[in-house]
């Protein structure tokens, strides 16, 4: 199965994945940590950065593995397993490296870093890369854009949630309930960007 590389500028992909096809606000991927770790701006921002780094890193590795191993050996039917163990191993090694060299950041991210392993957005971008048959540059910029977009979205949500932390809410809405509503409203707002450019 040979597909053509889409004729979209990597720069376009980069900006589109931040704004118009934001991982959270238009694909709704990586929602679990997005909702649960957005109470505090500081931790949310830390998680956002971690997601960004892991996205770019795993995208690069998965791209190489996809083109060097999965396609030649015709292993497409087990690509999910391969991608996910690669993501898990990368996060594990990254964790050790951070523990060693960036203890501050490591401590700030705490348990969130291992949690990234199971963040759907991370696997999601790899799978998008496969489906859309991106080139390496496109894939990397797509990953970077998606990571930034994810970061932007969780920062925005955390800022809003922090702002309204003391507001009185109907009982059933407090916590995740209102977070979903805010996310929905933010997603609606982001639809406004779709006029700028669209890649899919």
């Amino acid at each position, binding site marked *: 199965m040979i597909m053509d590389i889409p004729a979209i500028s990597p720069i376009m992909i980069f900006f589109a994945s931040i704004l118009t096809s934001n991982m959270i606000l238009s694909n709704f991927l990586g929602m679990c940590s997005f909702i649960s770790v957005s109470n505090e701006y500081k931790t949310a921002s830390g998680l956002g950065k971690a997601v960004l780094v892991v996205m770019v890193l795993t995208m690069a590795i998965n791209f190489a*593995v996809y083109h060097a*191993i999965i396609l030649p*050996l*015709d*292993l497409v039917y*087990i690509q999910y*397993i*391969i991608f996910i*163990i*690669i993501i898990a*191993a990368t996060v*594990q*090694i990254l964790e*050790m*490296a951070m*523990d*060693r060299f960036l*203890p*501050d950041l490591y*401590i700030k991210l*705490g348990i969130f870093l291992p949690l990234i392993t199971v963040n759907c957005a991370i696997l999601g971008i790899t799978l998008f890369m496969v489906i859309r048959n991106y080139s390496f540059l496109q894939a990397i910029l797509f990953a970077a854009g998606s990571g930034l977009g994810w970061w932007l979205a969780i920062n925005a949500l955390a800022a809003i949630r922090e702002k309204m932390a003391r507001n009185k809410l109907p009982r059933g809405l407090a916590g995740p309930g209102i977070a979903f509503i805010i996310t929905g409203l933010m997603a609606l707002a982001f639809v406004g960007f779709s006029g700028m450019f669209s890649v899919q």
Partner: protein
Amino acid sequence: MAFLTTVISLSSISLLLSVLIILAEIRLNNYGDCTLDINDNDRVLTVKGGASLLATLSEQGIFIPSACGGKATCGLCKVRVIEGAGPLLPTEEPYLSEQERKEGYRLSCQVKVKQNLKLFIPEDLFNIRAYQTKITQIDQLTHDIKGLRLSLIEPESIRFKAGQYVQLYTRPYGNVKEKVFRAYSMASVPSDSKAIELIVRRVPEGICTTFVHEELKVGDTVQVSGPFGDFYLRGNANNLIFIAGGSGLAPIRSLILDIIEKDLPYQMTFFFGAVTRKDLYYLDYFEDLSNKHSRFHFVPALSSPAAEDSWSGETGLITDVVARHLDTDSDYEAYLCGSPGMINACLNVLNAKGITEDRIFYDKF
């Protein structure tokens, strides 16, 4: 064939990743040897870095209490780390008060040993052991107080701070079918580490004191555990006051002898209260000591001396005697050991003399 490719490629990818992780672990998770400086150079341990402080210490035979086994859910394994612990982790926050954070307390199960650490562990935590001992001497000090000397068999020596106590375990005897333990302060000096001395006053119906007074003979083996307690010298003032009643002399004796032995520059006054002459003991011993050492003064006092005592020393309640001897200008630190009644009465007097609570240490029994 396709099946074989799947298995082989999946296995080899997993294998490769595992090897990478192991390599990373060896390369990144290896912190080499770190030194743990415990209690200001009291103990310096060289350990392999990388594990949690709790696990590292327990490997070294220092057991920090922990109920959850290192999951940061019990908050018991607090240790004061002065240097090298890194920033406070979110997992520790719920267990540390503002004050504790300021003083450097951490949960030892969360702190990872990555570099040289300076920490403080309460002495009793890494010293508590069970000791097999043999009674080598029993002195009848007064009609109801006995002095015991126990030489240590296993382990052979004990490290403690003057003023601390041990728990003495009884054997079942008479109607008492079970083993009980009671706490007794050590009257001996810490430098006399191969033995400990206890002073036991007979309490009517007391299980352990009766055991000591009736059952124990020279040559018997008994079990003790310790040392425990925070009744030890702080030394924040030039003048130290010691007040003891009855068998409360024990830790005071240890403290005084320890200070004299170490030649610490404190002025010491020891008030020893009893009812009549026959309740006083170690009188000659302490008088001798005060003759030899100009910085030590001994003030025995009887509350109601009997006519035949021909007592020429201080009389009256120990609180009154203490009040007479203290002036309000000097700075004092007070160490009290005796019955709760005596201690509470003394606390009032000392407070009235302007000695604040943080300068008063006591052992009530």
